[in-house]
C-alpha cells in the first residue's frame, strides 16, 4: 500500500484523489468485487512457441478444462487479452514480437511464463535464445517444468488469480505501463547479463566452448 495516505492531512493537501481511493471500507469492497470479476474471467493470449503449447492445449481441452477457472476464451487478439501466456522458448527473433504484443495489451494485464525455457532459457543456453522472458516483459507467475503438466499450469493460473485478488485500487503503481528505456531494454544491461548467467549443467560449457 505504498500510496496509502491518511485523510486527516487536511482538505488543502494535494492527494485528494489518492485519499479518495485509499483503503477504506468502500474501496476494499470495490476491490473485492473488481478482483473477483477480473480473476474469474481472465482471457489468455496464448503465445505458444514449442512443446509447452501442446500441454497448454491439453489444459484447455475437456479433461483439464481451464474453463472451470474462467479462461476458456482464448484471445488471439492482444487487444482483448488479459494474460499473456508464453508457452515455450523465445528466440531473440521473437523478442520484439512478444514485446509488441505485450505493449498492445490493455491494462490490466498479467504474464505467465510457462515452462523452463520461457522462464530461464532452459536447455537452450545458446546464441539464439532469450534466457528468460523476464528480460523482455514483466512476468507475474513462473510455471516450472519441461513441459509442465496441466496440473502445474492450472496451479500457476490459480496462483495468478490469488495475486489478482490481492490487488487494490489504492496502489496505482501496479497498473503503470512499464515501457522500455532509452536503450530499448527493459532491465539494466548488468541485470540482463546476471539473469542470463549459465546455471546447472550449462556451467560446464565455457563461453568459448
Amino acid at each position, binding site marked *: 500500500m505504498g500510496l496509502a495516505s491518511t485523510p486527516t492531512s487536511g482538505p488543502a493537501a494535494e492527494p485528494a484523489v489518492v485519499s479518495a481511493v485509499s483503503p477504506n471500507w468502500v474501496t476494499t469492497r470495490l476491490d473485492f468485487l473488481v478482483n473477483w470479476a477480473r480473476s474469474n474471467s481472465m482471457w489468455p493470449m496464448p503465445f505458444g512457441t514449442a512443446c509447452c503449447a501442446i500441454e497448454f492445449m491439453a489444459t484447455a481441452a475437456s479433461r483439464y478444462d481451464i474453463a472451470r477457472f474462467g479462461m476458456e476464451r482464448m484471445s488471439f487478439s492482444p487487444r482483448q487479452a488479459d494474460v499473456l501466456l508464453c508457452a515455450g522458448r523465445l528466440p*531473440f*527473433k521473437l523478442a520484439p514480437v512478444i514485446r509488441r504484443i505485450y505493449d498492445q495489451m490493455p491494462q490490466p494485464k498479467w504474464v505467465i511464463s510457462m515452462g523452463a525455457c520461457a522462464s530461464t532459457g532452459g536447455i537452450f543456453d545458446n*546464441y539464439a535464445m532469450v534466457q528468460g522472458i523476464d528480460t523482455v516483459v514483466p512476468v507475474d507467475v513462473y510455471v516450472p517444468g519441461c513441459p509442465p503438466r496441466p496440473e502445474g499450469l492450472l496451479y500457476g493460473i490459480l496462483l495468478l488469480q490469488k495475486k489478482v485478488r490481492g490487488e487494490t485500487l489504492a496502489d496505482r503503481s501496479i497498473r503503470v505501463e512499464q515501457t522500455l528505456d532509452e536503450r530499448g*531494454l527493459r532491465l539494466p544491461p*548488468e541485470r540482463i*547479463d546476471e539473469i542470463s548467467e549459465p546455471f546447472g549443467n550449462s556451467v560446464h560449457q565455457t563461453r568459448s566452448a
Partner: protein
Amino acid sequence: MTESPAAQAGATHPSVEALREAFGDTVTRATVSCGDTIVYVDASRIRDVLAWLKDTPGQDYNYLVDITAVEYRDVERPIEVVYNLLSLERKQPLRVKAELPKDGPLEIDSVVVLWRGANWLEREVYDMFGIRFRDHPDLRRILMWETYAEGYPLRKSFPLRGRFSRSEQMRQALNANPEAHYSMEELSIAEAYHNIPADMRDRLARGERAKIPEPPSETGGE
C-alpha cells in the same frame, strides 16, 4: 584414406563409374557410408558435375534433396559442401561433396540455375557457415536476421552463446523492427505495386530494412 571393402563397393556404383569416365580427375574419391554412396568432386567444377548428373539420360538425379555443409573438429580438414541428390524415376540417391580448404576463400558456384529450390538451401549454408555461393541471385541470411553481426553460428570457431554479451544481444533484438523482414520480391507484390494502399507503397519505397553491418571476416580457420 585406406580403401575399405565398402569404399571399393562405392567405386562400383554405376553413377561413380560414369562420373569418372566423364570427368576423370575431377572426381577425387568415392566411398560408401551407411549404405550411401558419397562422391567427392573438385569444388571448382561442382556445377558442371551436378548439371551432368541432372541432365544425362541414365543418371537423372533430378531432385535436389538438400544442400548443407560440414566443418570437422580437425582444423586441417577442409569444410565440405554436401549435395544430397535423388533420382525420382530410378529411386536412386547420391551424395556429392565438394571440399573447400579453410585457408582459401570459402566460395563455390551456386546451383540455383539447375534447381530453383537451391536458393534457400544455399542461403542457409551461407547463413550458418559463411560459404559464399557465386552467382546466387539473392545471397542473404535466412535464419538469423539480416543485421546479425556475430558471425556464422555453425562454424567451429563460433562460441556456443554467441560473441556478444547477453545484454547486447537483447538490445539488438529489441531494437529490431519485427515487420522489416520481407522484401518486395518475397511478398510477390512487385507487380501489384501500384494497386496496393498508398501507405504500404510508401513504406516499401522507403525501405524498412535496418542498415546491414559488414560481417566479420571469417574466411580462414582459427
